[in-house]
């Protein structure tokens, strides 16, 4: 058993394939379907309502996607290791309210420090998840379902009826989601930078690639000498930190933060990752795909409104997209397996 696993474990984000043909590799991209869907959606909508791609329109599209995008990137790290984090909505809520509280308690604190505090706070909450899961060896689904409730409960207990409004925060902080650089809102640029850093980390560094190996086969990864516990814990901490960042940005963008901020987000986040080609049982998918998945989901909402389509259809469409992504993933998986089998048969 150990021998088989060893040969299979590092097989994942096989770089060898990419060298063969540029076009071929583009066509084989897991992200291709979601990119196509996004392009078609935007083209059709813009053709019917030119305002959709006006300066303000693009800005709104990007702003809408920003927070979900960051959350989806974090979730992808966790899902790749064959885990899941359902508590992200609650973490976001806690950090968003925390941000509001920090500004009220210390109005003169530099904004960058507030970002630091928020990210750290999120990382701590993520570490709680990670430690419970790795040290106590308990399934992530159960633990994060539990912390989804607990974190939300703490948020409610802490906030009570208090809400902090845009007026309670420095104008410069709110302006992060108003001002643009080259047409891109500042908070979106932050998100893009995050996606880029995590993407490079996942493909270009040892620990990043370890996550894929862990998700493909945790047992084999352990035998292979990968520090599984530490890596999984890291994935949860990073996810928490990103949810914390999202929480701070939420406070910048929206009017009020309170007890219920961010509730119900978790399924949207998982949906964005799945639509972006991240396999729910780990081992495959990219953060870029997940980020595009998030962009697609939020764009659908805007597109339906812009086209004046009955908004009731929106959720059904999201459901169909998720199912389509799962089916595509399955087909790709079957094909990859067949190819591998042929290749190995030749090797023998």
């Amino acid at each position: 058993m150990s021998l088989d696993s060893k040969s299979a474990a590092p097989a994942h984000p096989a770089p060898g394939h990419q060298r063969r043909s540029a076009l071929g590799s583009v066509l084989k991209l897991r992200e291709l379907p979601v990119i196509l869907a996004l392009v078609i959606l935007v083209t059709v909508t813009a053709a019917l309502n030119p305002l959709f791609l006006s300066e303000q329109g693009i800005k709104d599209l990007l702003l809408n996607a920003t927070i979900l995008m960051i959350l989806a990137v974090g979730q992808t790290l966790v899902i790749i290791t064959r885990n899941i984090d359902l508590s992200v909505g609650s973490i976001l809520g806690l950090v968003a309210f925390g941000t509001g509280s920090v500004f009220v308690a210390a109005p003169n604190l530099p904004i960058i420090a507030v970002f630091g505090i928020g990210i750290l706070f999120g990382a701590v909450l993520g570490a709680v998840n990670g430690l419970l899961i790795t040290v106590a060896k308990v399934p992530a689904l159960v633990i994060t379902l539990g912390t989804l409730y607990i974190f939300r409960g703490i948020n409610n207990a802490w906030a009570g009826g208090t809400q902090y409004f845009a007026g309670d925060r420095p104008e410069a902080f709110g302006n992060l989601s108003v001002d643009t650089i080259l047409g891109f809102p500042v908070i979106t640029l932050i998100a893009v930078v995050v996606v880029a850093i995590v993407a490079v980390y996942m493909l270009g560094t040892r620990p990043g690639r370890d996550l894929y190996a862990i998700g493909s086969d945790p047992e084999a990864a352990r035998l292979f000498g990968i520090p599984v516990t530490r890596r999984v814990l890291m994935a949860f901490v990073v996810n928490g930190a990103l949810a914390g960042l999202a929480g701070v940005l939420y406070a910048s963008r929206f009017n009020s933060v309170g007890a219920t901020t961010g509730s119900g987000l978790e399924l949207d986040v998982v949906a964005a990752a799945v639509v972006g080609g991240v396999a729910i049982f780990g081992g495959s998918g990219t953060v870029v795909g997940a980020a595009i998945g998030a962009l697609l989901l939020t764009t659908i909402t805007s597109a339906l409104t812009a086209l004046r389509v009955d908004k009731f259809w929106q959720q059904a469409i999201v459901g169909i997209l998720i199912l389509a992504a799962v089916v595509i993933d399955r087909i790709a998986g079957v094909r990859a397996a067949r190819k591998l089998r042929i290749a190995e048969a030749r090797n023998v």
Partner: protein
Amino acid sequence: MSDPTGSGTIVHPDGEPSETAAKGRRMTASPGSTRPGTEKRQKPGRRGAADTSTVLAVPKGRTGAARILLGRDAVMIYVLLVVVLYACIVIPRFASPVTVGFLLLDVIPTLLIALPMTLVIISGEIDLSVASIAGLTSALMGVLWQGGMPIALVLVICVLAGLVAGAFNGVLIAYLGLPSLAVTIGTLALFRGLALVVIGDNAVANFPPGLTAFFTSKIGGTGIPTVMVGVVVLIVAFAIVLHFTPFGRGLFALGYSKEAATFVGIDVARSKFLLYLATGTVSALAGIYWTLRYSSARSDNASGLELAVIAAVLLGGVSIFGGKGSIPGVLAGVLLIGTINYALKLDRVSEVVLIIVTGSLLIISVVAPNVAAAIKQARHSRRVRSAPLP
């Protein structure tokens, strides 16, 4: 091919036979296995320490009676008992038939859906779309009734709708082999979306008063809701299917090891398909109950219920990885959350506390047995190590 999770195929393109063999070996290992070390190393990570073989390997010396009295189900029932007695003593007016009535009326939707959910999770799958099916049923019920259809026909159509929704899940998961977590996140959105498409922003409330009154009526002075009769019939039916039929035992085998289940002649796809049919149908019943109890058909009925159901089922001792669990345990889990919920409301404690308590219970319920098992395991291996070699 035989591994519908999709991940195995990518990772183990050639590893199926060996993995089957490995799992088969684990399965046939007797509880008194003298090789705890090897057992542990072969355990794949995603099963975690909740692995049945480990747990069963430990209580070697325990006799039948002790096993029953100290088992996971029994512990849940003790906890439930303690909570109920405590509430009876501490909270004024809790000890009353009125409590029984209101409490049961509140937990019936969770209780209903928890039954098929138990079977689904034991078989190693999950269904997140249950609350959306209930919502879709509710929406459909409202629209059909408003459209002037006789109520009996409406009810039949709604149950059929649940059956179809379940079949849709079932085909994708059992026959196309797609991962159930991803599929049912998709259908969670899809079915809720269809509910919105069907009824939109409207709410339908004018159901026959006789019928809605029946759904909140109680049996005599006992305080037990009349509909509980039907619920009990379902509970018994599911318990018999799970614990006393070959099909039910097959589900444990299925959740424990798909390959081994196939090997001993279980039709994996058919079993799973039937489970999703059951989940869809029972969710529809819960949707109907919800609509008539609150006499309000809306698209957002029962939203979020899926997480409450899963929390209750896991609290009831069902392993999220399949292969372990029981109906009595789940009943105790559902009633425990329901009792705490109602007791806190009666004591006017904020719902905030309830959320935190529910979450903590869930975590403790999975962490505690693992910690206990780890301690026992450590003691056991020390004993084995110190024993003279044969």
